């Protein structure tokens, strides 16, 4: 757990020792515990989702949209136990994605923008898990529970699951645009402006998913090269970037209301030495 060590690096007097020991220390003394809690939840659960969806249930990358009913029954048979166990774990842990949304909303609360931004983002993203993920998992669980069900009905559940997963792009589209606008308007320098534009890129890929409602095969189907693979690359880049930037935000956080202090690299420290600095006192 080297990342835990980097977290400790933000506090000069953090103890070294076992992981549990350090967690207890931070729980007692770290004023940013709430923020780090949300951040670690985000990292742990994004990784868990990756494992559950790609390895345990093996429903991602998505199977072809053109499979016929008997192939779909076969598809369910191949994954029977994985689907049931994997989605049970998903049901167990999904609620713990909420701290992620809370942290993202907090980032907007720290900006010099209206509270309307964090609240709308919080509601949009909390609601988005229901159609975007949980309905998929319910449909596939129901499909796997009774392998002897009429193949046509299993086929319907399969469509329901993947259309719900890929086809509910509106919530993410609007969510990204809300975040983008907040960052562009922000004067507290919580995030760099290029990340606002990256939000726009992510929002545009949500538009690109929409042909999945129309095509059953080819690059625009729900498993297509454009609607799934390219979008997935963008999503992974986007997620990695915002996890990194949120970490920087927590490190820089001073619990004030003015501009967030910059991370102090050597160059910046040298620059500060040349001109009198006012922000240094509040930075630590």
């Amino acid at each position, binding site marked *: 757990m080297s990342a835990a060590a980097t977290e400790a690096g933000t506090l000069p007097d953090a103890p070294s020792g076992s992981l549990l020991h350090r967690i207890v220390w931070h729980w007692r003394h770290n004023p940013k515990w709430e923020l780090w809690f949300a951040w670690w939840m985000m990292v742990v659960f994004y990784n868990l989702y990756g494992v559950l969806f790609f390895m345990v249930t093996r429903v991602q990358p998505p199977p072809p949209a053109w499979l016929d009913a008997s192939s779909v029954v076969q598809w369910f048979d191949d994954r029977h136990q994985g689907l049931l166990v994997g989605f049970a774990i998903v049901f167990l842990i999904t609620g713990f994605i909420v701290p992620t949304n809370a942290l993202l909303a907090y980032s907007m609360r720290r900006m010099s923008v209206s509270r309307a931004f964090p609240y709308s983002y919080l509601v949009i993203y909390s609601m988005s898990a229901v159609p975007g993920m949980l309905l998929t998992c319910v449909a596939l669980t129901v499909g796997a529970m009774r392998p002897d069900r009429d193949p046509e009905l299993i086929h319907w559940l399969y469509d329901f699951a993947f259309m719900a997963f890929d086809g509910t792009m509106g919530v993410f589209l609007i969510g990204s645009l809300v975040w983008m606008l907040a960052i562009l308007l922000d004067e507290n320098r919580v995030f760099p*402006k290029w990340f*606002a*534009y990256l939000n726009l*890129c992510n929002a*545009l890929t949500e538009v690109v998913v929409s042909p999945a409602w129309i095509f059953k095969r080819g690059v625009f189907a729900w498993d297509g090269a454009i609607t799934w693979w*390219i979008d997935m*690359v963008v999503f992974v880049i986007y997620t990695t970037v915002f996890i990194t930037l949120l970490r920087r935000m927590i490190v820089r956080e001073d619990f004030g209301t003015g501009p967030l202090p910059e991370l102090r690299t050597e160059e910046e420290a040298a620059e500060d030495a040349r001109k009198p600095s006012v922000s240094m006192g509040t930075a630590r």
Partner: protein
Amino acid sequence: MTNVASDGSRPRGGDVQSLADEPAEATGYVPGQPDMWAFVLFEAFLFTGYFVVYMVCRIQNPELYLQSQAQLDLRIGTFNTFVLLTSSWSVARCVQSAREGEFRSALTNVFLTILFGFVFLVSKLLEWAHEIGKGFGFSSNEFFSFYYFLTAIHFLHLLIGFIVLGVVVHQLWSPARRSQELVETGATYWHTIDFLWVIIFALLYVMR
């Protein structure tokens, strides 16, 4: 490797006579927010991804693509390209005028840009209506799927471009604002619409 070496290695249009003073020009200045360039490059690579997928699908079924392509009117595509190149030209003039403090001229040029953007918008809508009228829709065949997809996602960038130009007008309008940085950032975005179209034009209308 200096900047000059890479410039000299590639044939260029109209500025051969200015090659001599190139080193003096490389001032290390990025127009507008450097952040916008992150967007431009990200979108550029993303579009390269779309283009490659198009190419890979195309080489598997060249006949279909060639026949469908014959349904498009090359003259409309060329006209579109002219319009966008001209809009890019005027927004570049807007940036230069604003930089020299000639805000009246800058405003005129940004309005010209909006006008050309609007001409492109209308011609694209008419072209789509024409193709749909002939019975070629989004899901008619693979070529038309790509045609509508690429032109529509480009169209979406154009619509966002009008918002961006609105910000530029808002900045230039009042002497209290006039942030040169935002004007240049907006222009960088608008040029992106232009250069992406240049490639889409080549791939959809012209190539064989």
